[in-house]
């Protein structure tokens, strides 16, 4: 690059009016081996910027790994699942009846009640049978009385 052009670019550079391309041209001029003594003072400036851009860091970035995170999330999922399953298990192990089954059960209950009532009244009937026995006893006694009157009648004759 001609010196005049370099000087012009330098002026623009210090005014903040150069484009990136122009700045790259300046940088390659000043990092070359042929820098005019007139502008040599600026050499370390552009050399410095070029060097600074080469610096790198050996830093190994530590991110909390996604695996660990999902593991923790899975723990809570497992816990929730366990709680719901146990609660659900307890709930569902209680006999729950469908409508039909409930109706059947009610019918069965009614039938049972009716049978019970029947047998109860039947028992009452058998209890009454004992009176019949007594009556028979009475009737026997009556037969004895009859015999007694027969013999009495014979005597009276």
């Amino acid at each position: 690059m001609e010196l005049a052009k370099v000087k012009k670019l330098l002026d623009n550079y210090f005014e903040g009016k150069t484009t990136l391309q122009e700045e790259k041209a300046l940088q390659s001029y000043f990092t070359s081996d042929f820098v005019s003594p007139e502008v040599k003072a600026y050499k370390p400036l552009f050399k410095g910027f070029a060097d600074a851009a080469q610096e790198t860091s050996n830093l190994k970035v530590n991110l909390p790994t996604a695996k660990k995170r999902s593991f923790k999330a899975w723990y809570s999922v497992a816990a929730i699942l366990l709680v719901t399953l146990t609660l659900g298990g307890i709930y569902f192990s209680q006999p729950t009846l469908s409508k039909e089954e409930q109706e059947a059960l009610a019918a069965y209950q009614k039938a049972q009640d009716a049978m019970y009532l029947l047998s109860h009244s039947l028992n009452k009937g058998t209890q009454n049978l004992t009176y019949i026995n007594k009556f028979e006893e009475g009737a026997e006694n009556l037969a004895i009385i009859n015999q007694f009157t027969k013999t009495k009648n014979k005597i009276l004759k």
Partner: protein
Amino acid sequence: MKQEDFIATILPSKDKLYRLAKRLLVSSDEAEDAVQEVFLKLWKGKHKIKEYKNPEAFAMTMTKNYCLDRLKSRQASNLKIVHSNYPTTGNLQKQVEANDGVSLVFKIMETLPEKQKIVLQLRDVEQFEYYEIAEILESNETAVRVALSRARKAVREELLKQYNYGVS
């Protein structure tokens, strides 16, 4: 966003973030802490990354803000931290020491106000476009150009002073 995607998006910017942080914090350890911190923050908000037009500019803004906060709290706690950068990160250090003129430029840059440091770093080192710098600094292009011109002139002034002193 998976970790691989995240790393693919952000990792190429790692050294740029590091250089900006180091320009501001000077210590390379602190600069690495800053980058780690910014990566963590970005990772936590990773689902939002795609919403940003320019993830790199966003990461640069975060780094800049983080470093400025660090500098503020440093001032607040009134700690004078002496930076001793042992030449752990290799060649550059040696190059700088070997070339007095270049190390002088870095020393001059250290004396600039933060905003000028950042602008110089973003434009002359990282070669961002004006609009990108404006985005990173949450500013406008005119303000960026003004700050850049001031920063360059300030460096020039010091550089020429030392140069003429060395020559004469």
